């Protein structure tokens, strides 16, 4: 068929619009599966299908139109009272998937009439759905076998004044704004050099830089997308996989409004999908096994996103069987890398190695040992990192941290061997201008930061840029950097301060440069190299183990000193709050464990004591007040400081907490890093300025 230029433009517009509508339809249909009688929801689904049909008719895509029409008929039946059976929803979702595939193919000139026929036939006569094993009858007691928790329907989308924009145009805009800012800095430099004036003293230049700064901020904001953008594929993956495996799974998404750079989100989307798939395939047990283990029939996979400073932290947690560490060690041994002498905390990271799988059987979903290494690589490509926690029988948690944007990176500038380097701030744990004193442990040079010892290397030597006799003195400044899984200290000549750096990717022409994250053009035209902390730490460890460093390698990234840092137990049923508090406390050098409710907290305290407890009030099973009373009632724990953190701020709530035995009462709305650290430090009798404060 001959297509004119104008028709081609309309068809391209249709393709873009259809993509958005089909994603919305998929999301609404998943919701419909839970709330099949919600007439407003049904109307929304119907409206989307109807609009899609109309648009397909306008651009003359007859096959798409037929499928959309058949969907409309099924939805009309549901509006009249037909039940939204799993088979019907499967057929509707199948039609959505089919159209996603058909639209680009038909637009490219392919004939998809047969495909459309099949989809229409399935809609009219849905094939039987893969079903979960039926719930035991009569319905089990709510305490032992709860059904899926009630789901709040997402708010209806408001109509907004928007304009569709190709991503490449936006990227180009961001690049140009970045270059304009860099050019303005160079102009300032010329003014300083040739006219002898300070750029800040010239109003016109001052205005220009202020406007450019604002422009840069706005254009970067334009690239931001909410984390919820990937909610639909996550929900869909969870639902389809759970159904195909016969598992009962509830996916809980929180923090969908958290924004991050589109490019970063794109890189994070696949790792997230993989982790959710893994959680369902390997983590969550079959319903019978869960019931036998005294767990709710429905397993929960929680995906929580929250912004922490210049990073977004996403946790993927499940309440399944946890990672079988013995099997990880066994598989690593088979792969020729026994983890003898490596602690559990570090050994668990072997799951990210290429080719290592702990799945008992190879399935279509996972078990081929391909995946977690890709997760790690994808995160590394956006300068992110991943942490893993797992408890046998209780579940696993993957915590992904990624920078909000890659275009502008807050960096600590350091000097080594007379050269300046940028270090991304999100990898800087602490920095100390006066340096930390060095110790020797088992022939290794280490430094003590708070009550933890860390391996230390010279930055210049690690980078291979040190000259003869240029090694910094043992009392020279040092920075502690955190790679994906390890911490390492580096001696430098000087700390030059912190500033935002417009980082440029070095492109695909060059081979991978393990020590370099990117480069930036300085106002004087010179080039600032921004270091890749993961590569740097790996290189330093390799150099130490090969005798090229100042000392032999350390067997562990952070060997606790005998006294050990203070240990805090954080108790909150909301993963985001738990993570926020944990992050603040860990950054400040505390050892932190977490528990999701009061009952689990008491079990954790019985297992290993803590120096302080930070707890929420409203939690399932055993709330924060009951937890506090239980702590005060136990002779072994009665002196344990308890900080209550709650969203309730009335005097009555404060009194209730104090009556229960709390030592401090903080309101979540007012909670910030300083307040929490001040209160915790005060109750532990420590100085208020912990190690993590330095250099921040």
């Amino acid at each position, binding site marked *: 068929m001959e297509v004119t230029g104008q028709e081609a433009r309309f068809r391209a517009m249709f393709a873009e619009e259809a993509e958005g509508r089909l994603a919305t339809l998929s999301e609404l249909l998943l919701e419909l599966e839970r709330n099949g009688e919600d007439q407003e929801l049904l109307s929304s689904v119907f409206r989307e299908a109807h609009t899609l049909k109309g648009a397909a008719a306008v651009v003359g895509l007859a096959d798409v139109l037929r499928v959309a029409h058949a969907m409309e008929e099924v939805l009309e039946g549901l509006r009249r009272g037909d039940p939204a059976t799993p088979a019907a929803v499967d057929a509707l979702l199948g039609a959505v998937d089919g159209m996603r595939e058909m639209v680009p193919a038909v637009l490219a000139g392919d004939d998809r009439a047969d495909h459309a026929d099949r989809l229409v036939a399935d809609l009219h006569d849905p094939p039987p759905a893969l079903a979960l094993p039926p719930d035991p009858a009569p319905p089990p007691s709510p305490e032992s076998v709860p059904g899926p928790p009630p789901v709040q329907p997402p708010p209806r989308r408001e109509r907004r004044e928007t304009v569709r924009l190709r991503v490449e145009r936006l990227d180009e805009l961001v690049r140009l704004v970045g270059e304009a800012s860099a050019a303005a800095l160079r102009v300032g430099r010329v003014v300083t050099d040739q006219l002898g004036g300070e750029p800040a003293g010239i109003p016109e230049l001052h205005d220009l830089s202020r406007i450019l700064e604002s422009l840069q901020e706005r254009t970067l904001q334009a690239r931001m997308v909410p984390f919820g953008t990937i909610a639909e594929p996550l929900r869909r993956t969870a639902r389809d996989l759970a159904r195909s495996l016969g598992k009962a799974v509830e996916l809980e998404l929180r923090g969908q409004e958290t924004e991050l750079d589109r490019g970063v989100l794109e890189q994070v989307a696949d790792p997230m999908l993989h982790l959710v798939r893994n959680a369902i395939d390997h983590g969550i047990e079959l319903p019978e096994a869960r019931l036998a283990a005294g767990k709710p029939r429905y397993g929960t996979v929680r995906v929580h996103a929250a912004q922490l400073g210049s990073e977004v932290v996403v946790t993927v947690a499940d309440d399944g069987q946890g990672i079988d560490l013995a099997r990880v060690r066994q598989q690593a041994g088979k792969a020729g890398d026994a983890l003898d002498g490596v602690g559990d905390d570090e050994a668990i990271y072997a799951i990210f190695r290429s080719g290592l799988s702990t799945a008992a059987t190879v399935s279509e979903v996972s078990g081929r040992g391909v995946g977690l290494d890709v997760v790690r690589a994808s995160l590394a490509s956006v300068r992110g990192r991943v942490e893993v926690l797992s408890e046998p029988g209780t579940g696993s948690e993957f915590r992904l941290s990624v920078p909000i944007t890659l275009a502008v990176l807050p960096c600590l500038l350091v000097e080594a061997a007379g050269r300046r380097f940028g270090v991304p701030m999100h990898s800087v744990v602490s920095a100390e201008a006066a340096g930390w004193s060095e110790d020797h442990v088992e022939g290794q040079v280490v430094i003590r930061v708070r009550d933890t010892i860390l391996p230390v290397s010279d930055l210049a030597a690690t*980078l*291979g840029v040190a000259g003869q006799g240029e090694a910094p003195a043992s009392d020279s400044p040092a920075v502690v950097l955190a790679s994906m899984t390890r911490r390492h200290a580096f001696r430098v000549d000087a700390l030059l301060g912190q500033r935002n750096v417009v980082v440029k990717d070095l492109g695909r*022409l*060059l081979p991978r*440069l393990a020590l*370099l994250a990117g*480069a930036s*053009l300085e106002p004087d*035209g010179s080039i600032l*190299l921004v270091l890749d902390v993961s590569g740097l730490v790996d290189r330093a460890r390799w150099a130490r183990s090969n005798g090229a460093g100042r000392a032999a390698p350390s067997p562990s990234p952070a060997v606790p000193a005998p006294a050990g840092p203070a240990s805090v137990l954080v108790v909150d049923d909301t993963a985001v709050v738990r993570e926020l508090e944990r992050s603040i406390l860990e950054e400040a050098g505390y050892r932190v464990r977490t528990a999701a409710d009061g009952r689990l907290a008491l079990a954790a305290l019985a297992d290993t004591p803590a120096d302080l407890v930070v707890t929420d009030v409203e939690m399932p099973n055993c709330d924060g007040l009951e937890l506090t009373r239980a702590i005060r009632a136990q002779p072994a724990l009665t002196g344990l400081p308890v900080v209550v953190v709650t969203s309730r701020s009335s005097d009555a709530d404060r009194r209730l907490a104090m009556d229960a035995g709390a030592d401090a009462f903080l309101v979540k709305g007012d909670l910030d890093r300083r307040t929490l650290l001040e209160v915790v430090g005060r109750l532990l009798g420590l100085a208020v300025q912990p190690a993590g404060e330095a250099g921040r």
Partner: protein
Amino acid sequence: MTRAILLPVGRDWYALPPVALQEVVAGPVVTDVPMAPATVRGLFNVRGQIVPLLDTAALLGLEPTAACPFAVVVQTAHGPAGLAVTGMPEPAELAWLVGPTRARGTVGAYAAGKRVAVMLDPLALMAQLHPPGGR
């Protein structure tokens, strides 16, 4: 007769089609890249753009050159790249093929006046940045 730009690299002469050449930078200020392979001399600033400077000799499998008084900027599929040369490039006419060449990234030796110059294939030459088994 084919027009070309002759590039001095050590004692050898190489040739590039004029269309591949973007500009010549005299005395490039190079920022070394730690732990980079011998084929990468560093990064330099070309009109506000950060451009990698490559060691032409190392790309051809020869000993890297010590000095880099000039950089020849060429366009690649992944943006501009600089080729380090040891003298001022000059235009020339390539008369005829005088023999085959073995190094990857070359297409043959040509007579160019009194000199013999090895014609470069910039795309094949850049491929040497990613040797098999590398990234």
